[in-house]
């Protein structure tokens, strides 16, 4: 099919892209290139990068495992009060991340209702652990997956699921063999959004999980700290973060969206 993008859209589209691209390009200009390699390969920087990738991946998986079902329920069930239930899911988006971290701390901290119970009964302390990082990231990243996936599910409609049912497919079979493949683009872009958001998460992590090299100090925390003392290092690592994100996004999206 040949359709045309109206010509007058190109100008605002280009401006929008430039608004995002130029500051990022500015970052590239700002980098202290002669020392770049040295700046980004310090042990602390590498530890932060590794932790960020690991926790980002874990977050994405958790978002899929839990947020995926939630999106299906939101898009397909007819629970009473659905608009309210849905809007609660969006709250981590509006909550300033620091406040989000605080609420997690109130709940899972050593004196909070859940954290206190875990501490007393099992001796498990959540804050200051890598698990806390994943929890904080999942809290802020979940809405991304849920919203994009729910949108995709709604746009795709239920027609194919109805057909599958008339062919004898149980709801579970229908889910795996029809729903998931049909909304795959939405699932992919939702996952990418969630991963990206986890990769950039700062406020909730530092408030809830703390900042300890190798355990809880993810790349954004590292960059922020670095920026206090060594702006060059911070800029260099920001660029690394940007490159990692671009790689992840390009790889995951070129395969499945086109």
């Amino acid at each position: 099919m040949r359709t045309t993008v109206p010509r007058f859209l190109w100008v605002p589209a280009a401006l929008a892209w430039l608004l995002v691209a130029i500051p990022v390009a500015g970052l590239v200009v700002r980098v202290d290139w002669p020392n770049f390699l040295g700046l980004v390969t310090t042990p602390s920087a590498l530890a932060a990068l590794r932790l960020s990738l690991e926790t980002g991946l874990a977050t994405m998986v958790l978002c899929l495992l839990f947020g995926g079902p939630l999106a299906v329920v939101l898009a397909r069930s007819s629970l009473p009060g659905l608009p309210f239930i849905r809007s609660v899911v969006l709250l981590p988006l509006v909550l300033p991340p620091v406040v989000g971290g605080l609420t997690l701390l109130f709940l899972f901290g050593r004196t909070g209702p859940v954290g206190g119970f875990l501490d007393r009964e099992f001796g498990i302390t959540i804050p200051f652990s890598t698990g806390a990082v994943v929890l904080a990231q999942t809290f802020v990243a979940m809405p991304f997956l849920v919203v994009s996936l729910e949108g995709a599910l709604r746009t795709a409609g239920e027609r194919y699921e109805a057909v599958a049912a008339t062919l004898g497919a149980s709801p579970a079979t229908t889910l795996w063999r029809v729903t998931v493949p049909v909304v795959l683009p939405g699932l992919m872009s939702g996952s990418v959004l969630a991963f990206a958001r986890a990769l950039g998460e700062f406020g909730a992590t530092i408030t809830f999980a703390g900042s300890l090299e190798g355990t809880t100090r993810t790349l954004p925390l590292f960059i922020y700290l670095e920026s206090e003392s060594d702006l060059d290092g911070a800029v260099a690592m920001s660029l690394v973060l940007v490159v990692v994100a671009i790689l992840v996004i390009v790889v995951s999206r070129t395969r499945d969206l086109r």
Partner: protein
Amino acid sequence: GGSDSGSGQQAAPARTLTVSAAASLTSVYQQLGTEFQNANPGTTVKFNFGGSDSLAQQVVQGAPADVLATASSKTMQTAVQAGKIQGEPVVYATNSLQIAVAPNNPKGITSLQDLTKPGVVSVVCAPAVPCGAAAEAAEKAAGVTLTPASEEQDVKGVLNRVQTGNADAGLVYVTDVKSTNGAVTGVSFPQASAQGAVQSYPIGVVNGSQNADLAQSWINFVRGQQGTAALQQAGFVTK
């Protein structure tokens, strides 16, 4: 410090003074701002609170502030080196460390040494930020090595941990302990006044300010009677 309250400028036309100040100065400055306005009718003081580093960067990038008051000499130096401060900034207050613990000090902590006891969860600021550098200096002076559960970005983070019971002790400033109104107890320790452990609060007039005279009178006001009183009230040591 001086005692000129700037009350001689009553006839001045309506003017706005923009003060970029470290977040830890929020309550003191807000209180002083009201008093300054009362003393200088027709003047409005606007505050831009934030991290010292951001504030310095903003000034360097030409943000239209009149006064820059950071929470460390190093960040002030950023602005000075960029030629953004008129003359020499002055240090008008200092702040020193205390060990923040839960009210009534349930773990019985009395010294830096106690923070290394097993079962005591401690937190400090990261060495890269001023309060962390101070903590490091104090540690060195005391000859102890802490193994903190977390190296926080700022004092507030440390305080938060102690306040919510997630940490048993944390190194923060006296002013921070005061600001909690008793939510945490401060334990003083001798190494707090060691070389490099004391935080200083410099202030200066931003180069290119449209209100350089008003800015200067704000500095004088902060260093004056009312300013000193308020700062001391908050736990600062004034100079």
